């Protein structure tokens, strides 16, 4: 290869590498990320953002989020409202009988929870229940392989969705840096 051609190849390759660092080469995944829309101005990026959205779309192996979750979602306090339920414990058990440490998966003040692989790496399928005080709900079926609750539990309830995850409970009063009413419809 001649030096000029080699230089052109290097420029194109570095451009492709740079593009790869900022967005996905997989158009299907990129469409899923784009479909989530932008951040809400009142909620900064972090553990309180995007309540009710499918977390692992961005927090999965394809990014673009830096932190990867094996499982994550939002628990709401009622079937017909999008008020986040704080301090609810998410109980999980995988096909090998393994669970996260007791008390380690608890929703924050907007109802979000997340599990990183260093906390627990489940062998799917996984059974799940959510407990808030004396109230609780157990999922009828199991989670086959999707780490995002909201991929299946989206609103409105319909042929392919049982609606958002909820435990009918009065949300305990906790201080929260953001509004605990979801800013987007899951």
């Amino acid at each position: 290869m001649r030096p000029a051609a080699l230089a052109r190849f290097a420029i194109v390759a570095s451009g492709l590498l740079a593009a790869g660092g900022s967005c996905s080469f997989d158009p299907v995944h990129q469409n899923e990320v784009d479909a989530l829309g932008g951040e809400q101005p009142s909620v900064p990026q972090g553990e309180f953002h995007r309540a009710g959205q499918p977390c692992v779309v961005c927090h999965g192996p394809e990014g673009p989020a830096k932190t990867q979750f094996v499982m994550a979602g939002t628990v709401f306090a009622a079937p017909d409202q999008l008020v986040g339920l704080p301090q609810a414990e998410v109980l999980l058990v995988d096909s090998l009988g393994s669970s996260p440490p007791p008390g380690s998966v608890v929703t924050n003040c907007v109802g979000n929870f997340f599990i990183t692989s260093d906390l627990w790496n489940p062998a799917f399928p996984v059974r799940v229940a959510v407990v808030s005080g004396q109230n609780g709900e157990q999922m009828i079926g199991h989670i086959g392989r999707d780490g995002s609750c909201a991929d299946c539990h989206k609103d409105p309830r319909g042929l392919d969705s049982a609606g958002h995850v909820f435990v009918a409970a009065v949300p305990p009063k906790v201080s929260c840096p953001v509004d605990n009413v979801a800013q987007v419809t899951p």
Partner: protein
Amino acid sequence: MSARRLLGRLAGAALLCAGATVDCAATPDPGQVTVVVTPDFAAFAGDANNAGVHTFLEKRCGTLDCHGQTGRPFRLFSSGGLRLLNDAGLTSGAGTDTAQEIYANYQALVGLQPEETSRVVNNEDPPSSLLVVAKPLGLQTHKGGQALAPNDSGDLCLEGWLMNKVDMAACNDAAQEP
């Protein structure tokens, strides 16, 4: 190559093409059909006392994040997963399976490899020659991993049914949530 020889070859090729065209454009023969021998639908559907084959397939494979999706060739409807379009207002997680959903699941399973299914039902090929058996057993790549263990109740239920020797006790056991 001489012009005469070239012309001869061209004429030969033209005759071949014309022959092929006539053959392809022949009137379809309605009597030429592929007969599909299907496994027993009654055993698949079960009854008041037996869960049938469909219940375990729906519970084990038909969640919304796996085969409970419309885009999948082996697409499963169920009360706890994807619902078939209905006028009763049934949504995911509500009510029970409808007869239409159970039949649609049967069609999806048989329709995956109808001719190979025939050979299995006729005991000409083993059940593991079917994707619906080979994939969950891990004999072929399966995105959902190994979903059945050899000779577990689900495997016995599915393979027995495909070979016209349904083991309903195994099906009932497999239909229980773990």
